[in-house]
């Protein structure tokens, strides 16, 4: 259902590149911080999806793509991604549209508490 993990696209498709840019914050936690910054502010074309955000992030940080995606490009089963506190699994998954000011939180698998 998803693109390859190390897709090199760093800009959104032309159809949305002309749209207004939005600013979002991507936060990483736990083991993801071993390869990525804890907080990243991105300016990205309005109408972009979580999938596109992950394309940008995984291109910027080596190794993050393999932590997020399987070899076949699927989001790993126990990875959780929140948009403003709501798991994207219950919105539109990786096709969830981002909006200006969104906070996207990326969590690795966690078992325990």
């Amino acid at each position, binding site marked *: 259902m998803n693109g390859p993990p190390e897709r090199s696209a760093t800009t959104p498709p032309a159809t949305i590149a002309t749209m207004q840019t939005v600013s979002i914050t991507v936060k990483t*936690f736990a083991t993801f911080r071993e390869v990525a910054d804890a907080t990243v502010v991105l300016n990205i074309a309005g109408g972009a999806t979580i999938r596109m955000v992950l394309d940008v992030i995984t291109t910027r940080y080596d190794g993050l793509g393999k932590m997020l995606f399987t070899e076949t490009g699927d989001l790993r089963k126990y990875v*959780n991604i929140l948009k403003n506190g709501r798991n994207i699994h219950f919105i539109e998954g990786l096709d969830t549209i981002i909006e200006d000011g969104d*906070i996207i939180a990326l969590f690795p698998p966690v078992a325990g508490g």
Partner: protein
Amino acid sequence: MDAYAGNIAYIDLSAGTVKVKPTPQSMKEEYIGGRGFGIRFLTDMVLPGTDPLSEDNALVFATGPLTGTGIPLGSRYEISTLSPLTGCAISSNSGGVFGWKMKKAGFDAAVITGKAPKPVYLFLDNGEVSLFDAADVWGRTTGETTDIIQQEHDDTKIRVACIGPSGEQLSLITCVINEKYRAAGRGGCGAVMGSKNLKAIAVRGEQKIGVADEDSLNLIKDRIRGKIEAEGVSKSIQDYGTAVLVNIINENYILPTNNFQTAHFEEAEKVSGETIKETIFKKAKGCYACIIRCGRVHEIEGKTGEGPEYEPIWAFGPDCGIDDLIAVTKANSICNEYGLDAVSAGATIACLMEMAEKGYVDHPIRFGDADGMLAVLRQMATREGIGEELADGSYRFAERYGHPELSMSVKKQELPAYDPRGLQGQGLAYATSVRGGDHVYAYLISPEVLGSPEKIDPYETVNKPEWVRTYQDLTAAIDALGMCLFTVFSLNADDYADLMTAATGIPFDAAKVMTAGERIWNLQKLFNLDRGIGMDADTLPERLLSEPLQEGAPKGMVWHRDELLKEYYAVRGWDETGVPTTGKLKELGIH
């Protein structure tokens, strides 16, 4: 040969007598061990109307058949008793090495009744049972007690589970600490030990723990080790400890803050697992046979200690509006030394803070006051000043000042670190828990937040009663088996059945595991019903029913009791008032 030690010790502290009898086969088949044994003994031995702090209460230490067999995460022992905090039959478990050594000492359980005429400690020593004068350790902290008992016997291999000064003073929120840092935390087990003048149980064991089918068990061990390590699900808590949850729960806007007034703490990062790793973390530590090693050894000001875990961090941190990791860690250490339940202690101080801010209590403490929190905690630990009123938990304190609604508790036991307004299933698990406010009798956080075994919508009520029942029954079985609850993220009932069968030779399948769990749950429910704890107690604090969350994705949400509880009772096969039907009890063979 099987994985049971084969014997149960019965100790009458009033008479100073000990009897050792074989572990009944019927108990193994129906109640497995651990929590199952404990609840069965309580039901048989403790009459309705019994004062929990009287000599008529019973205290049961029990291992499970899988404890100490070398199975990954098979380390647990259970303490069961009539809780002085909740009035419920409770069991509280702990890891470390104690359970393994207790079984190697030759005992599946120690059933303790009566009250010693003077302080004593019990010694289970390679098949022998003795009582020793505890004059040298009475009044001592848990760490001092452990060291002194080992010194008295000149053997550092002896493992000690004991109470601290708070348990001696009968604080209702006291725990039992084994190996200085591991807590059987909830429900006031420590006060029951204190009421019996029982300072500690020491164990020394070198006996072999056998299994029925070693070849099969080894194959199953390999399988479940692979499952526990698969998908990297254990790596985060290996690397960051259970405190890895601080940021996760906060980002979901369900981290109770300032006594559940909000559910998002702006400074959560400062007390997170990530910050611990960068600051006070020294090394990871695991229980017997653990392949996860979620325990943390910390170093502060040149002094090492253990913890803090997620729940104490929350209780002394966000729930008190405190972002000072050092203060939180010191608070956790005080609880370990004095034998206080860190969840209840922290949540009780949060209750005090809100009542003080609202002017219901004349006290200077306010949310965010780390020094004030530590000062009040020390008073609680020794029952001095306002600590005398706080030492029995938030409900009794808030009720004393006319505001019981500000105690964030269920059945008078403080809720843990997840706001149920944004977690409909976990809310139902809290409300219906047979030991009071608690998350480890059914950890719905796993599917509702962490996505294991699958992601279910935390805001929805549909199908949640069935999920809750399944988690409650499975958890009861895990507690009976002697396994760590963290296995629930990776294993299923088939795995537990295979382990049980190979270890004991008693044929189990998944259905039999789940039925045993359901039997334990129903027996515990009946115990509570016989003491007047029924449907009215199956609820949450009014705040969580009527004050919507104000921030983030769950903004506007409350917990939906009516639609959840009615269906839950139906799913359980209970009547509409939450009483198990005759048919259900017959089906489970409860009599």
